[in-house]
């Protein structure tokens, strides 16, 4: 009898799964804001400062400050790159002491515990990349209440839980860049699939949702096939991408990698299947991992901001916030070698447009 129940449950699961085939899987349900199809920049809506303010922060102007950086997780290439940028900026400034510490898996609970401990230990500044924008908010508010300067980068929290957020590239900008490159490489009426980390990763979910909106607006004939999950595991990403190739055969013209792990693994899958030039790979990735494929012409272009610059900018922003030189209402901030960075969207600092690496320039980057 129980076996029957289990079989029924299985049937139910399979049946209900069919209902979700319509939209792009993996996107979130937040409102989207696709950019114009041509190069017109998105309209900038002036928005008042919506970040938080630390309570009774001591005067840190020019004084040496201790900063802790709590990324989503440690031990991955992307966040080692941001750490590198932070160290660079701290060295330039000379009055910032920064260390990176965090959970070994992208886990909301552990990240909160880490930040909580650092609030107790009494640091001057906290940098974070949130595993979940809402879950992290209470502990960040606690940090602000303790007079600590709080700045986010890479993945945002709710605005009032931190002072500033260094935005590597706006979601709709990344989405446009990815979809435009994809359409250029595979043609307007071709089919493609997506390899992502997990559906619960906020940034990836946001990008997929924005990509769907932008594609519907500007490349309506592009055919979305499916999204597969591959954690942050390169062997699994490789297997999933290979299975996609096997499944769709000639129909599949492109694979989009949503993480810096998935994109090189997808490129490897295309290479090992002997389909270089037949199946295009576009995606977010770091140049070092992509060099072999770009140099062999298996991958034409890779989209990414420079994570080293992202970490670098985060330190400059935090320093400016601690010094009081970056105040609510300001429209720009100086960030060392990066020059003036614009304040957008109330309390976000924009690093720039997403950067496209190709064969001509990929050799110049090392991260």
């Amino acid at each position, binding site marked *: 009898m*129980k076996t029957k129940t289990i079989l029924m449950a299985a049937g139910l699961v399979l049946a209900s799964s069919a209902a*979700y085939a319509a939209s792009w899987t993996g996107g979130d349900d937040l409102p989207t804001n696709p950019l114009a199809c041509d190069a017109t920049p998105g309209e900038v809506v002036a928005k008042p400062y919506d970040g938080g303010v630390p309570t009774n922060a001591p005067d840190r102007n020019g004084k040496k400050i201790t900063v802790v950086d709590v990324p989503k997780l440690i031990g991955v290439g992307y966040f080692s790159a941001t750490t590198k940028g932070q160290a660079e900026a701290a060295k330039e400034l000379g009055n910032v002491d920064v260390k990176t510490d965090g959970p070994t898996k992208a*886990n909301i609970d552990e990240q909160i515990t880490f930040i909580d401990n650092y609030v*107790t230990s009494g640091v001057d500044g906290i940098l974070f990349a949130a595993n979940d924008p*809402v879950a992290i908010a*209470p502990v960040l508010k606690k940090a602000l209440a303790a007079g600590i300067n709080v700045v986010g980068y890479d993945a945002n929290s709710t605005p009032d839980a931190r002072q500033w957020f260094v935005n590597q590239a706006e979601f709709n900008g990344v989405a446009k860049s990815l979809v435009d490159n994809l359409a250029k490489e595979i043609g307007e009426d071709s089919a493609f699939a997506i390899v992502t980390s997990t559906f*619960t990763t906020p940034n990836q979910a946001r990008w997929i949702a924005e990509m769907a909106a932008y594609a519907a607006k500007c490349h309506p004939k592009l055919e979305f096939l499916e999204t597969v999950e591959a954690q942050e595991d390169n062997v699994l990403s490789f297997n999933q991408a290979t299975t996609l190739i096997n499944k769709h055969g000639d129909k599949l013209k492109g694979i989009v990698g949503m993480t810096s792990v998935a994109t090189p693994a997808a490129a490897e899958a295309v290479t090992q299947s002997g389909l270089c030039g037949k199946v295009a790979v576009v995606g977010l990735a770091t140049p070092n991992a992509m060099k072999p494929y770009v140099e062999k012409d298996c991958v034409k272009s890779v989209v990414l901001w420079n994570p080293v610059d992202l970490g670098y900018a985060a330190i400059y922003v935090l320093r400016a916030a601690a010094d009081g030189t970056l105040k609510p209402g300001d429209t720009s901030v100086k960030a060392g070698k990066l020059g003036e960075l614009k304040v957008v969207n109330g309390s976000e600092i924009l690093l720039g447009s997403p950067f496209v690496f190709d064969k001509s320039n990929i050799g110049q980057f090392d991260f």
Partner: protein
Amino acid sequence: MTLSLRSFMRHEAVLGILLVLVLFVLAQQSDKFFTTANILNQGRLMTEIGLIALPMTFVIITGGIDLSVGSILGLCAILLGVFWQNLGLPLPAAMALAVCVGALAGLVNGLIITRFKVPPLIATLATLALYRGLAEGISQARSVRGYPEWFFVLGQGEVLGVPTQLWILIVFAIGAAAILGLTTFGRATYAVGANETAARFSGINVDRTKLLIYTASGLVSGIAAVIFVSRVSTTRSDMGTGVELDVITAVVLGGTSIFGGRGTIIGTVIGLILVQALKNGLALSGVKGDGTIVVIGVVLIFAILASNLFSRNGDG
């Protein structure tokens, strides 16, 4: 029985000394460690693991294991949000229902283990994947947010200056210790773990005992889920991933024998506090997270090693 009782009391003594030592050393390292605010805050952070560790102690004493607790936590968290937002139930009802689903999930574990005679490790390995999968499927990886303010009292509020959930943990720990130490059910739990066949022959309803314990494990995971959601103010389908290893570490460190038949709630509580004190104290003294997990690994092996050396006449 008296011999094994003495040997596990010895383990707790060893562990207690170790804990005092650790607390002392850590307090020397950072003046922020031994403050009321920090200690109470740590209590808040360890509640979910602590709650689940209580029934896990029973589970392991019976010679079983429950690897699905983290997934049950995730499933209940998701369902709490779904019941409240998507089905429009009042929040208290949604909380109660989510906890019931936890109990149901535990009951299913228990049924697979007792009726089909599937070893607990395999049964709960399978349901670990199943429950996590259900959480992901039901939620479609969407979060539910925007809970009313009163709900956060549970996870972020205080009662008489002590975090609300710490009261819950204390009440549950005392209850669990009483059940395990003073009732016939507690004695049955030990008997099942020490020798299942003998327990069966001496008239103990082994299957019912196990069924109740696994159901309790699911139920408490459900309660932990509600507290967790209240603490972090959102639901996600990946909540509680890997919790099972933290819970088992606390229980095993507390002297509960993985072979069954031995263990106490007080040991589990000490084990739990020791792990949390290490995590917190080492962070405050400037040790990074990767170093901390190495230390916890060493302490786990060392604690069991030390207690083995002191009780060589025990059954090992």
